[in-house]
């Protein structure tokens, strides 16, 4: 880590911190129906959409209705995208039914895991209507669930947690679309192409023939970050110079990932009237993010430039990898597979902890609140009282949901990893690397799929029916199982009455921030220590000792 690297990291965190209050305030305004200066432009569109969909915007939903709408909306997006993928005129890589289904699920769950290479597989209309469209829709649905979760915590004796259709429409019209217009234009100014030209055939300066892939890249590039999706227009994703032409463009893209999820901690404070609690959550995020940065930077002191781009260097590649792995966004600007074992482990751990440092759009806020409530329960056991969060008792019904939420990930990711390691269909994916690194590659794939992240140790050949089916299952579980459990908890907490209590563990203190971090790390370590040792740590030992 150099002086310049530290400077870039600090500048990034300072800007994200400065964005927390304005973005959080704006999000709170949008999802309480407050007035914004965008109203004259987008309100007519909003009304037209409600008329078309026959939605009564004033009618709120119970958690079960909200969750049903969330799942059906996700499935509708999956089917629409599957139809587009299967319907397009074939290119170099055929979109087989299993690849199309995997991709359709991947983009409608914000995982945007890619078992294909964009420039040889997708037509321009598919990239726009299918993939960019789902980037908006799935991103908006994630934000809606996050907002509904916060509403549940904020309400007192209420049966409803909002209207899913209204939340999705407002997320698109007031948040994702206007920001993407500004961000998309900014990226174009910085060099990202936006054309519908045929691939350019040139004779290079030195007389070689070169074909250069083109496309409407800018329309996908910004929303893929803002919606914490991450699937690239090109195979190399964020490393491709057309997706990420300059370090400044990369910096802007990283801010697009972290800005809204960081702001949601402030929205949480506004909704619940507990601003300090929100800042404690934000502080935990920064601490975990910073710890990951320090660990990855120091691991990469042994690193090479293999898989990295000169304009970003090791510093910019590490900042980006830590941001994307925490942010449920797979848009890395370097080949993760070639990172040092411990830097790769940092990315893996960021995802395994549930992507709680900023996190995915909407999912980040409920992920960290789940850990916070689990921590509160543990401390409650120590003092022998029923824990309360924001004055709401965490009884057995709530704790069951929180524990269920916590164990779904290991229950999905670890058996699938074991299955792949034990079958020839799984091992066939290890075409580039083997040994402990191969284990990490497979484990990383299922973790990334479940965490709806989508970044990969791309040496794994994942476009086989085995991996297309199993990663799709992990993506569905990570999106819908976690989303529905979170909504169920929101419904339960929204119904329960707030109590004025004394003698509870205060949740707006530095100490409670420490409890959250401790809980995340202890639960993570207890769950994942064995594969961490067998994969990255063994590989690190081998690298240090020089054993091939």
């Amino acid at each position, binding site marked *: 880590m150099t002086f*310049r690297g530290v400077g870039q990291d600090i*500048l990034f965190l300072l800007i994200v911190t400065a964005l927390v209050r304005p973005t959080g305030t704006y999000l709170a305004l949008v999802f309480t129906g407050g007035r914004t200066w965008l109203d004259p432009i987008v309100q007519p569109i909003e009304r037209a959409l409600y008329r078309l*969909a026959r939605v009564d915007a004033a009618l709120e939903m119970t958690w079960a*209705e909200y969750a049903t*709408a969330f799942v*059906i909306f996700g499935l509708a997006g999956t089917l*629409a995208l599957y139809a587009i993928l299967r319907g397009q005129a074939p290119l170099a890589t055929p979109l087989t039914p299993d690849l199309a289904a995997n991709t359709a699920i991947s983009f409608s769950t914000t995982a945007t895991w890619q078992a294909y290479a964009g*420039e*040889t597989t997708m037509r321009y209309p598919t990239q*726009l*209507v299918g993939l*960019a*469209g789902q*980037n908006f*829709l799935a991103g908006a649905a994630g934000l809606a669930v996050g907002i509904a979760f916060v509403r549940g915590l904020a309400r007192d004796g209420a049966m409803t947690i909002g209207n899913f259709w209204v939340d*999705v429409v407002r997320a698109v019209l007031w948040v994702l*679309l206007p920001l*993407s*217009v500004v961000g998309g*234009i900014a990226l*174009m100014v910085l060099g*990202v*192409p*936006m054309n519908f030209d045929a691939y*350019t055939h040139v*004779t*290079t*300066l*030195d007389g*070689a023939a070169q*074909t*250069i892939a083109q496309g*409407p890249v*800018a*329309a996908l590039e910004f929303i893929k970050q803002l919606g914490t999706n991450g699937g690239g227009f090109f195979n*190399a994703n964020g490393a*491709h*110079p057309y997706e990420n032409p300059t*370090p400044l463009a*990369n910096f802007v893209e990283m801010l697009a990932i972290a800005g809204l999820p960081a702001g949601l901690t402030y929205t949480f404070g506004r909704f619940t009237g507990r601003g300090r609690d929100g800042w404690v959550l934000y502080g935990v995020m920064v601490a975990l993010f910073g710890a990951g940065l320090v660990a990855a930077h120091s691991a990469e002191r042994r*690193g*090479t*430039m293999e*898989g*990295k*781009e*000169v*304009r970003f*260097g090791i510093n910019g*590649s590490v900042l980006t990898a830590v941001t994307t792995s925490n942010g449920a966004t797979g848009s890395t600007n*370097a080949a993760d*597979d*070639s990172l040092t*074992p411990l830097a790769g482990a940092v990315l893996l751990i960021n995802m395994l902890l549930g992507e709680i440092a900023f996190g995915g759009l909407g999912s980040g806020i409920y992920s960290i609140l789940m850990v916070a409530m689990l921590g509160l329960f543990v401390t409650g056991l120590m003092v022998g009282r029923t824990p309360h969060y924001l004055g709401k008792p965490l009884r057995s019904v709530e704790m069951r949901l929180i524990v269920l939420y916590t164990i779904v990930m290991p229950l999905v990711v670890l058996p699938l990893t074991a299955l792949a390691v034990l079958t020839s269909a799984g091992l066939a994916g290890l075409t*580039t690397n083997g040994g402990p*690194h191969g284990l990490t590659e497979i484990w990383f794939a299922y973790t990334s799929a479940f965490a709806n992240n989508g970044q990969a140790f791309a*040496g794994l050949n994942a476009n086989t029916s085995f991996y297309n089916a199993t990663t799709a299952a992990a993506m569905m579980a990570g999106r819908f199982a976690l989303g529905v459990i979170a909504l169920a908890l929101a419904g339960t907490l929204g119904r329960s009455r707030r109590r004025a209590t004394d003698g509870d563990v205060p949740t707006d203190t530095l100490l409670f921030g420490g409890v959250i971090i401790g809980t995340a790390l202890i639960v993570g370590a207890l769950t994942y220590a064995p594969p961490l040792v067998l994969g990255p740590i063994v*590989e690190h030992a081998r*690298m240090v000792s020089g054993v*091939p």
Partner: protein
Amino acid sequence: MLWPAVSLTVALMLLTGVAYPALLYAVGLISIPWTAGGSLVRDPSGRIVGSALIGQPFVSTRYFHGRPSAVGYDAAGSGASNLGPTSPQLADSMARYAERFRAANSLALGAVLPPDAVTASGSGLDPDISPEDAALQIRRVALARGARVDRVAIVVAAHVTRPTLGVIGEPRINVLRLNLALDSALTPR
């Protein structure tokens, strides 16, 4: 539940997947057609020789060379080697790249090389090299062009892009732009 899901999916996909790209496309076409068109660059005769953003293969001694590429600078695709840090193949390829670089530039067997000169990039299309990489190629390029080393060094120094605000990114040199500048500054008489 079904009708709102279907109708909103279709309507919002049209809004965000058709109307939004159309708006960006129009803005690009009107205000920044060059970058929107892929930053294509021409030589003095007006022939398109590539994109300023996309690396291309250079083998002639009179040109600065880009980094090793896992896809051979085939810009119809993109990609990295994805070799793990302890992969024997990675060690082999790094040794091979180093040998090639030293031979091309008549460097001593044990000469220390900058990391970007011996590794394949993330995209396979990296348009840049580090100033350290370029410095080791100056002598060879000058010799091939019959130019003075310090004249080539001046052109190289003028093409170093510094980090934004001093901290965002790394110092770098765009290889295609550097070679185009050499062609116009040091035309052989």
